[in-house]
């Protein structure tokens, strides 16, 4: 989508003023990312975000005058190339499984808490612009495979790799994190695709595997 030279253009829609300012600030000091719009709600977003103006839209799910999911679907209709990152103050990642059936390109999900960590936020936006699905790292780490699913049958090593892929890491980054070679990461992935019976091109399989992870894991509420 975006060439390596051009900065990723981000539009932020967030109704909490302090938070909007903080997000804008984070990106301002980041090379490789440029904020084109910082908007407080759905009404402003629909007017300002025109086709071709934005690579990645960072949308709060709970907006004062609407919800981020509906807005994301509308933006996709206006600009089929746009990528969406949903932002939420509490765990709504489970909502994705029904949403992902309706979207053009799989959406990423980040909790506001994690968005405060600059590298997590920036990595999420850049990875999403490159076509990867990014799920909130803390939620991913707390996700446990559900009984009776294919993901529950993955080996511990495969699950570890799948978790990091779900966090949006590239194969190289996964390899660095786990102290293994990128080749090992690739063979793990191939095994995962076989186990989960996922077919297709590389990018599609990766996204499909992440969505399966999302669908087949849960985070039960702490007592």
């Amino acid at each position, binding site marked *: 989508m975006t060439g390596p030279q051009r900065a990723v253009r981000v539009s932020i829609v967030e109704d909490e003023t302090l938070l909007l300012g903080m997000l804008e600030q984070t990106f301002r000091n980041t090379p490789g990312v440029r904020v084109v719009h910082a908007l407080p709600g759905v009404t402003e977003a629909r007017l300002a975000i025109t086709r071709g103006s934005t690579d990645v839209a960072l949308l709060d799910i709970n907006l004062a005058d609407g919800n981020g999911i509906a807005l994301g679907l509308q933006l996709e209709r206006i600009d089929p190339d746009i990528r969406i990152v949903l932002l939420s103050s*509490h765990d709504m990642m489970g909502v994705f499984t029904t949403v992902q059936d309706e979207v053009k390109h799989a959406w990423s999900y980040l909790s506001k808490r994690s968005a405060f960590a600059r590298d997590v936020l920036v990595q999420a936006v850049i990875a999403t612009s490159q076509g990867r699905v990014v799920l909130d790292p803390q939620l991913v780490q707390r996700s446990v495979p559900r009984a009776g699913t294919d993901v529950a049958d993955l080996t511990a090593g495969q699950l570890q790799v799948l978790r990091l892929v779900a966090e949006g890491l590239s194969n190289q980054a996964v390899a660095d994190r786990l102290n293994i070679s990128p080749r090992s990461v690739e063979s793990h992935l191939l095994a995962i695709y076989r186990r989960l019976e996922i077919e297709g091109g590389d990018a599609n399989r990766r996204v499909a595997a992440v969505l399966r992870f999302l669908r087949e894991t849960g985070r039960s*509420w702490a007592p």
Partner: protein
Amino acid sequence: MGALRPAPRDALRAAAVVGVVNAALWSMLVVAVRVSWDPDDVNTVAQEAAIGVITLVGGVLLVAVCLVGELPSRRRSIRLIAVLALSVVFAALRTVVDQRVLPLAGDTHSELLVLGINTLAYLMVASPAILVSALVARRQAEQEAREAVEADEAELRRDVSEHLHGAVQNRLVLVGAGLDQLAAESDQEGRPERADALRAWAQMVDTVREQDVRVISHQVFPTGLDLGLAQALGLLLDRLPTSVATSFHLGEGVRELDQALPIADRLIVAAVIEEGLTNALKHGHATRISLDLSVADRALVATLDDDGVGLPTGGTTESGLLRQRARLEPRGGRIVLGNGPAGTRLRVELPIG
């Protein structure tokens, strides 16, 4: 909001049965009173029977006029006038037939008297149906008032939940992040104990946000319900312990219907399913749960199956579901709790207007 909704079918049916039975009994009474059991008068039995049939037909038609179609309050007076007019018409018909069978002294005075008596007779036949339709209309009005209150409550719940998920959670996120920041700075300043203390406070703020606020908000308004009933039910399943296998199936056309479903209706169905899930785990000890949300016969149907121990043979006191039943039944919905393919099956039906 001005005109009443059409009465539910079973209420109309009840009113119709009352009206027709009354008309039939009345017709039989008319025949019984008039028939002379003298064997020489065999002819008249057939004629009396004919009068009985006319009475019955007239009565049933009057009942139909009372009940067919909607019962808008403004038009009730028109309907009553129609009943009165029809009564006179049938009474006149009866009077004419009576004259053939039982000629009275041919003066207008007694003919008018007979006409008047017959009219009253038909009005008596119609009156139970009129009464029942008035009762039905009253019941509808009460139900609409109740639903208006429920709709208000649903809006309030949604507003409270939005406030909690919006302003309150956002501020707690900022506080937690601020404390983390101070902790990082304390680390840099070489004050590790202070850093740890600050991180502990940040942790507590996170707990308040992720547990307390979230639990309260969910109690008031199920998470994700404003996005749709399907989303909220999916999130309910997600929350279950991961040792429980789950599956969720959405039937065709449910998504569109979901978006148009009033919040109060979503609340009821979600409440029943949540109750069902709690029971499946607590009493049924289920390890597999499957939920299906479909449309059937213009009704939304949610079916919850589990592989638990099933219902006790003596029946259950499903007290938790009783209240939900009371809210569903006036809307024409119902809850069916029984044995399913593997354990228990809970089925919720809600007609869609």
